[in-house]
């Protein structure tokens, strides 16, 4: 093998250092019009009026689009993931987050496009907004989504992602201590140095060429084709180098609308988000609220974990149900916990809709689990590395969703960390392996766990 295991420079390294890498905004097509969006200034409001006629008649303005121009008025296309559509590509009767796009303009210059956006007449009737996911369940909180304040379309039309394994009540009875913790990581903005950007060119043969910054070329192609209700071969999507994505350039946030403008104006169109739009309106990593209660023995065995997760999806569902599902499958982290009671909710708020970001759904639970392990060690007066090694996944142990591990590397990794930080381990911990549990590493409470689970 010439490449695997070799240290080879990036194939585009020389292009990067000579300024020759072409990003979407570097694509320069004669006759390109600038796009600008009219965005909601409110967190939650009914749209009482939307009149684009003044904008349309301004000199230098070639096209204005609203929801009426969108053949399939849906954001994203996630039916394949079992997530029904809940979000219009352009706002129709209401807006549910500050920055939600309502209309788009294509004009001769950026200045003219901005002036045309200002000339769109729009009226709102503000509504109470919900920002705290913990309040979503209160009957007094405003109802902000057509499905209610949390996602109700998991399999079997359940409104909660559940994992049940073993007997959590028994675990809590048998425990010497219950250790509790609440973990609330905040939203994170991807902040790629390249903002969202798209260039669309109508071709003489009737196709559209889309220069996209997407991380998911064929996914975006399918999404746009579905929105435009055109066959895939009508679109040619050109990807290339994304100027940083980290999960935030999968949403296909610009492509369809740029296509619609290009089709209506019959001119090439470029839509480049400002840094302010990127910060205020682009989707972020979600905030989470996680409550953990672990049943533990005084010698450091974890008997059971009861966990509640609230995931802040923002105003619409997007990928959140998928993220929460992954989160639930990983909610025991690197450790074998035989008795589980997990409930997770995708909760809506009037915040910017959230999306994938590196380790979607799982980084949150890793943070919670690892911090919680330290808390457990602290409360029990035990060494935090030894307690991890004891409970670490081994061959034959099962994940929350019932997958038996065939070769987990947890033990080896933790031992390597201990050595790297100069943490002395007792001999029996130094010699641990990931071999199937026997003897002292297979206490009674784990006996039935290996190879069994329940959940959905």
């Amino acid at each position, binding site marked *: 093998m010439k490449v695997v295991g070799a240290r080879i420079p990036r194939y585009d390294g020389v292009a990067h250092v000579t300024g020759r890498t072409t990003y979407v905004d570097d694509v*320069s097509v004669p006759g*390109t019009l*600038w796009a600008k969006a009219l965005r909601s200034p409110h967190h939650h409001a009914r749209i009482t009026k939307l009149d684009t006629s003044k904008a349309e008649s301004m000199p230098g303005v070639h096209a204005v689009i609203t929801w009426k121009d969108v053949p399939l008025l849906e954001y994203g296309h996630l039916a394949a993931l079992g997530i029904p559509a809940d979000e219009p590509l352009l706002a129709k009767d209401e807006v549910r987050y500050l920055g939600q796009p309502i209309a788009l303009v294509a004009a*001769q*210059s*950026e*200045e*003219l496009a*901005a*002036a045309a956006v200002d000339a769109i007449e729009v009226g709102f009737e503000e509504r109470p907004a919900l920002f705290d996911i913990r309040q979503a369940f209160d009957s007094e909180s405003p109802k902000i989504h057509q499905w209610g304040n949390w996602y109700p379309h998991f399999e079997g039309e359940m409104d909660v992602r559940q994992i049940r394994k073993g007997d959590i009540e028994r675990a809590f009875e048998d425990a010497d201590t219950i250790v509790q913790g609440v973990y609330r990581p905040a939203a994170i903005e991807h902040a790629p140095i390249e903002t969202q950007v798209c260039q669309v060119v109508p071709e003489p043969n009737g196709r559209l060429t889309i220069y996209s910054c997407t991380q998911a070329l064929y996914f975006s192609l399918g999404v746009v084709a579905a929105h435009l209700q055109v066959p895939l071969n009508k679109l040619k999507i050109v990807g290339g180098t994304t100027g940083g994505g980290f999960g935030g350039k999968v949403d296909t946030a610009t492509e369809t609308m740029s296509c619609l403008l290009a089709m209506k104006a019959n001119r090439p169109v470029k839509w480049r988000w*400002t840094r*302010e739009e990127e910060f205020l309106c682009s989707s972020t990593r979600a905030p989470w609220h996680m409550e953990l209660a672990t049943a533990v023995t005084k010698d450091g065995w974890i008997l059971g974990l009861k966990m509640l997760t609230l995931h802040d999806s923002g105003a619409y569902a997007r990928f959140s149900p998928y993220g929460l599902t992954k989160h639930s499958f990983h909610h025991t982290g690197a450790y074998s916990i035989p008795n589980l009671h997990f409930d997770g909710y995708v909760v809506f708020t009037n915040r910017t809709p959230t999306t994938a970001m590196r380790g979607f759904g799982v980084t949150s639970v890793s943070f919670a689990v690892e911090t919680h392990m330290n808390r457990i060690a602290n409360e029990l007066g035990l060494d935090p590395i030894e307690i991890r090694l004891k409970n670490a996944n081994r061959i034959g142990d099962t994940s929350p969703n019932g997958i038996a591990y065939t070769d987990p590397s947890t033990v080896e990794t933790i031992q390597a960390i201990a050595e790297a930080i100069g943490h002395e381990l007792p001999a029996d911990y130094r010699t641990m392996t990931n071999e199937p549990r026997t003897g002292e590493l297979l206490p009674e409470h784990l006996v039935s766990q290996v190879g069994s689970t329940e959940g959905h």
Partner: protein
Amino acid sequence: MAVASVASDAATEVLMPGSEDEAIATFGVGAEVVVVGGGTIVVPDMTYRRLRPAKALMLGSAGLSGIGTDGSRVTIGATTPVQALVDLKAPLGPCASNVADLEIRSQGTVGGNLCAGDGTEAPRGDLQGAFLALGATARSAANGDVTEEPLEDFLGKRHERLLLSVSFDEPAAGAFVGLDRPHTHDYTALAVSGARAQDGTLRLAATGAGSWGARLPSAEAAAGDPAVAGEAALNDVTPHDDALASAWYRTKVLPVLVRRVLTALEEST
């Protein structure tokens, strides 16, 4: 694609005076004229369409840059880049070093920084506290009339006058302590400058504890005991909330910065 969208709008009339006298004449009474030092504040505001001036006065060629000394009197021209100050003694040197990054300091000017908007909207004016602690005076013009006055007085009128230069006497001792952010190119969240003049007068000033730089007379009066002075400083300013720090945080940290500046001044005497 249209070039430089600024040009295609009811275009801003750009004036580039070639001397101080021309600048003063062009500024006139400052009505509808936006003054551009280096451009680090005005240009992005125009890009984002927050500012659409009818007239812009670009001062880069007006000969207002430079640091001159006359005995112990130092005069700094209004369009001197902030970077030119970094090697000066405390408080001015460390204060200037703390501003943004090399590129911004090299383009941004002393005058532009001093005359920046109110701190609750645009937290700039990083240098205000340092110059106030130095007991600086500001030479400025409006309607053809050139005046020199204490910087404190000028700051209240900074949007109505054209700043030409700032002057101060070299102090006997100076100190600067600012909130040190983990990454640079931030605006000054909170900083305290102090200087003891040759005649023994002690001046303390804060930047970032309110909408613009302010002297701390209560702290000055209690300077004999840095801890007491630190707390007393809270009588002189009303810290605010903004994206950089909360009022609560500023209230906690201001006394600490005051104490450290006073301690540093004691140690250097």
